[in-house]
């Protein structure tokens, strides 16, 4: 009959005698199980919430986008009767245009780019339905449609960031003022990913929704649409519908280029889903490493407890006590530590899950969040948290009960034994006096503990290196992009025009389309016939006594396209500049800006070259728009030669020399026009001043200071850095716990030796110094191993991520030297200084008793 009471009391005494070490290990276990339990469900939370949110807001299944500057007549399009196609439940025609948004209030300059989206309020906004969170005003209504009414709702994240409430007004491109009645979530903009550009913060991009008719009026595209969203019936074959829509549309609008995306290709959804999945992998890795660290600690402690009980174990065996009984007591201790740690861990988990769920709700506002308690995560964490450390105690216990009783009983069997790898020192000379050799010898004496401690520390440092490496890689990539953007003409502003305009001023009389008498539709529709003259206006701004601009604008072209090499193809953003006179030219790592032959040459990014297997001199198929006879564009393919490779990590950026006139005239067939301008402020004029003035110009869709890009990035990095600080602190704490645990075990084990040293008059500080040297060795080795492991993990995780979601960037996995130094210092110092925590214990040591008691 097992006397549970006695056993429990006995093991409880064991625990109490080592309460510091027990607590240290329990806390490490708590960190591991806590992360597991608290964050184990985050993928499910996010995926479920995204699914539900997309479902509720009727996220499109298919989306047809006409090329930039290509519009179709709404009535003509609706006449196709596509909503009658089998499988189509609903469709909504929309007008989506770039705009500049001035949300300045009370002297606060808020001047950003964005989108103006005309939604079919009259049809009830059946697809990509907008949603107003409680207390954020109202949706658009039929009554908001009218020739005099400029009623809008604003995307929630931007509105929230700038505190724009119903009643506020926004000024859009062309000087139109709209009144806000609400802030909304839209399934297409759960996260902001701009159509072009490198990186943008939620607070720097405004999506403005107005009734379709209002959008058509404000953008001078009466009756036009350029974007159609389809909602399919459950179980409909999306690809089949896509093919059918494609054939019908290209038949009816042969000269209009367009593309049809499936919901699965939606970049925002893709990122949100894969982020959820990848974050889970990261958190699981973190939790797992914590648990391994905890297990190593438990192993060390159990080993020590068993060693201290070795004699009792031997006596037990001599008395004929069955082995399983003997093993029971130390195992019970291991089990109790594990349970204790897991209980702490569930507390940590609940705290973490609360913290993260509130973080999710602010960082990723969705109309619907399911943050229910994730039971499987907690169960998994509990099982792992109990099992791993318990298994770790099993090994030393098993080893101990296998020793012949006689060895175990023998007085001083372990105490007097050098053991371990001490013999190594006989063959490998260690420099220095016996003092300085002692730490090395002590480490060799218990090689297992040394190795386990080292790996425990390595786990912590690996985590640190990995996370900091993420940040460093990110920062390095951004800095490289900044260098690429800013290596010349750093004060320039880039201007997207809302259409093509003559690149020489004054070619066409500047007629304001808006006040065109009669509003002849044909005349307004045909951009090249009647239109403002933004280039001419900007040329004027560079003249006079107080010019705003340093010089006349550089006229360029900005087009979407696709590079095709063999089976692979990728979307690119193609800029055409006159390389001889451009304010900014790409910085090349290989090749040249133009081909000597004068044939069309193209400059692509390193990543594109890599992905397509191209190098300078190779030819590649470029799919690009070509102006067709009817004021629209179709896509055609031209073979071009790679003339150079630039250093911007953004894969999509592609450049051509617009002086390659043959290409512009014959292939694009848009000679003498521009849709993209580059300007520099005159001396003493700020970028904001230029922005404000340009914003008023007709034809200007977006103005961006090139230097703003880095500011947006810095802003976003701040959050990341803060999260990192927390992780850093936790990890350093864990390294400390591991080192503390191991040091305190060492002090325990060598208490007699230490007392002997004291008997010979060695000072506490000398003993402490020796322990510190010992720890510094373990700490340094552990840290170095950890940094290596961290590097490997960083690469593995980044590679996995890059393949899935960061394909658009060229990442050079980087760990900054400073990072390494900080990791090294944190690891080594934390571990090295841990013996200071044993000073008190040594000070309080009762030397006579310690020396007196043999076992």
């Amino acid at each position, binding site marked *: 009959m097992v006397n549970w009471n006695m056993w429990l009391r006995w093991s409880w005494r064991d625990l109490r005698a080592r309460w510091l070490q027990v607590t240290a290990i329990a806390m490490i276990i708590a960190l591991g199980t806590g992360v597991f339990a608290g964050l184990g469900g985050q993928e499910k939370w996010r995926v479920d919430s995204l699914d539900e949110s997309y479902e509720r807001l009727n996220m499109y299944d298919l989306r047809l986008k006409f090329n930039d500057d290509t519009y179709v007549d709404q009535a003509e399009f609706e006449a196709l009767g596509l909503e009658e196609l089998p499988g189509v439940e609903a469709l909504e025609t929309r007008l989506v245009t770039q705009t500049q948004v001035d949300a300045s209030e009370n002297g606060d300059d808020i001047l950003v780019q964005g989108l103006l989206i005309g939604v079919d309020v009259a049809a009830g906004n059946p697809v990509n339905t907008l949603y107003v969170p409680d207390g954020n005003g109202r949706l658009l209504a039929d009554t908001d449609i009218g020739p005099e009414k400029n009623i809008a709702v604003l995307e929630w994240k931007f509105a929230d960031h700038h505190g724009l409430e119903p009643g506020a007004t926004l000024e859009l491109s062309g000087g139109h003022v709209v009144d806000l009645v609400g802030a909304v979530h839209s399934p297409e903009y759960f996260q902001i990913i701009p159509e072009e550009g490198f990186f943008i913060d939620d607070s720097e991009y405004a999506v403005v929704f107005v009734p379709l008719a209002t959008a058509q009026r404000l953008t001078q595209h009466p009756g036009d649409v350029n974007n159609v969203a389809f909602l399919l019936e459950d179980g409909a074959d999306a690809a089949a519908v896509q093919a059918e829509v494609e054939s019908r549309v290209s038949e009816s609008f042969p000269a209009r280029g367009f593309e049809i995306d499936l919901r699965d290709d939606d970049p925002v959804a893709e990122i949100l889903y894969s982020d959820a999945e990848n974050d889970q992998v990261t958190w699981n890795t973190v939790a797992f490493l914590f648990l391994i660290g905890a297990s190593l600690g438990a192993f060390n402690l159990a080993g020590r407890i068993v060693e201290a009980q070795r004699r009792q174990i031997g006596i037990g065996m001599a008395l004929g006590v069955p082995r399983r009984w003997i093993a029971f007591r130390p195992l019970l201790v291991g089990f109790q530590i594990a349970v204790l740690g897991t209980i702490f861990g569930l507390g940590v988990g609940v705290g973490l899950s609360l913290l993260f769920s509130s973080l999710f709700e602010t960082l990723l506002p969705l109309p619907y969040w399911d943050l229910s308690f994730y039971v499987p995560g907690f169960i998994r964490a509990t099982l792992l948290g109990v099992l791993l450390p318990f298994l770790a105690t099993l090994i030393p216990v098993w080893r101990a009960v296998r020793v012949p009783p006689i060895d175990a009983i023998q007085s*001083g069997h372990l*105490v*007097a*034994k*050098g*053991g*371990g790898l*001490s*013999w190594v020192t*006989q063959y490998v000379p260690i420099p220095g*006096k*016996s*003092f300085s*050799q*002692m730490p090395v*010898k*002590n480490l*060799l*004496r218990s090689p297992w503990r040394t190795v386990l401690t080292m790996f425990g520390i390595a786990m912590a440092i690996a985590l640190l290196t990995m996370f900091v490496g993420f940040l460093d890689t990110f920062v390095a990539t951004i800095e490289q992009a900044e260098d690429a953007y800013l290596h010349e003409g750093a004060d320039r502003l880039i201007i997207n025009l809302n259409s093509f305009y003559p690149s020489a001023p004054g070619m066409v009389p500047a007629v304001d389309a808006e006040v065109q008498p009669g509003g002849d539709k044909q005349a307004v529709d045909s951009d090249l016939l009647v239109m403002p003259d933004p280039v001419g206006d900007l040329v004027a701004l560079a003249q006079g006594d107080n010019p705003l601009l340093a010089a006349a604008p550089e006229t360029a072209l900005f087009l979407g396209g696709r590079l095709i090499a063999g089976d692979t193809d990728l979307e690119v953003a193609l800029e055409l500049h006159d390389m001889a006179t451009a304010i900014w030219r790409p910085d090349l790592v290989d090749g040249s800006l133009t081909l000597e032959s004068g044939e069309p040459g193209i400059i692509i990014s390193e990543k594109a070259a890599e992905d397509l297997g191209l190098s300078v001199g190779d030819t590649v198929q470029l799919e690009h728009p070509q102006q067709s006879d009817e004021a629209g564009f179709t896509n055609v393919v031209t073979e071009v030669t790679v003339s150079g490779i630039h250093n911007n990590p953004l894969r999509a950026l592609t450049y051509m020399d617009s002086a390659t006139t043959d290409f512009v005239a014959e292939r694009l067939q848009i000679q003498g026009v521009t849709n993209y301008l580059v300007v520099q402020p005159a001396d003493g004029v700020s970028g904001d001043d230029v922005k404000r003035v340009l914003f008023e110009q007709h034809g200007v869709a977006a103005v961006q200071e090139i230097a703003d890009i880095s500011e947006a990035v810095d802003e976003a990095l701040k959050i990341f850095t803060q999260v990192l600080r927390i992780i850093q602190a936790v990890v350093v704490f864990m390294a400390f716990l591991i080192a503390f645990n191991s040091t305190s075990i060492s002090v325990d084990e060598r208490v*007699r*030796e230490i*007392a*002997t040293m*004291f*008997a*010979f*008059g*060695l*000072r506490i500080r*000398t003993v402490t110094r020796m322990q510190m040297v010992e720890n510094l060795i373990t700490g340094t080795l552990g840290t170095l191993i950890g940094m290596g492991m961290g590097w490997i993990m960083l690469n593995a995780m980044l590679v996995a991520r890059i393949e899935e979601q960061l394909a658009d960037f060229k990442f050079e996995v980087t760990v900054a030297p400073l990072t390494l130094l900080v990791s090294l210092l944190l690891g080594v110092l934390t571990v090295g200084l841990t013996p200071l925590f044993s000073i008190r214990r040594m000070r309080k040591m009762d*030397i*006579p008793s310690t*020396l*007196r008691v*043999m076992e």
Partner: protein
Amino acid sequence: MIKLENISKRYEMGEITVSALDGISLEVGKGEFVVVLGPSGSGKTTLLNIIGALDVPTEGQVHINGGNLSLTKKANRFKFRRETVSFIFQTFNLFPSLTALENVQFVLDMANEPNSRDKAMAVLADVGLGDRVEHFPHELSGGEQQRVAIARALATGNPVLLADEPTGELDFKTGIQILELLKRQAETGKTVLVVTHNREISRIADRVVELSSGKIVSDGPPRTGKAEIAELQW
């Protein structure tokens, strides 16, 4: 050399007070070889620890070497142990991860002695271990380990040697050799105190201080008659 005045040591254990030493006064001169004899629990170790400044008395004064060092200060006790006394323990207490040589070298390095290795070699040769210097404690027999411990104590060059049951873990023959070794140290001018519960051993000393229940019950030549080490038997 050593002067104890009315030393008492009491342990408070809840209600009960254990009196380990009770009014001990004792003087030991330079070069004396003294055996402290008494049954288990009579206070021998406590007395030795107080002389060696490992422990502090509850009452009374300890004067060592003229006594200008106040041993109530912890730092002074460390200094005293470093410079005046050397311990030899029943269970040797060698540093297990250091070889015999290194164990001895350790205390020389502690005192910043130059050529610590050569000196340690010499001391080990003195105690008859010249051929085992590279061995670890667990590779040595008990007697050999105790010799290393004595070598370690001698290497400090401190004038007072304190040996607590130095033969307790050893067989008779080995014990005899250890005692001879210790006695020789007194002949070279060191003050040596050896603690034992074995009356037979005490016969080798000129002076035996006998303890019982924390009190000195006799102080003088061995009661059962002085004997040469070779004549002992137990």
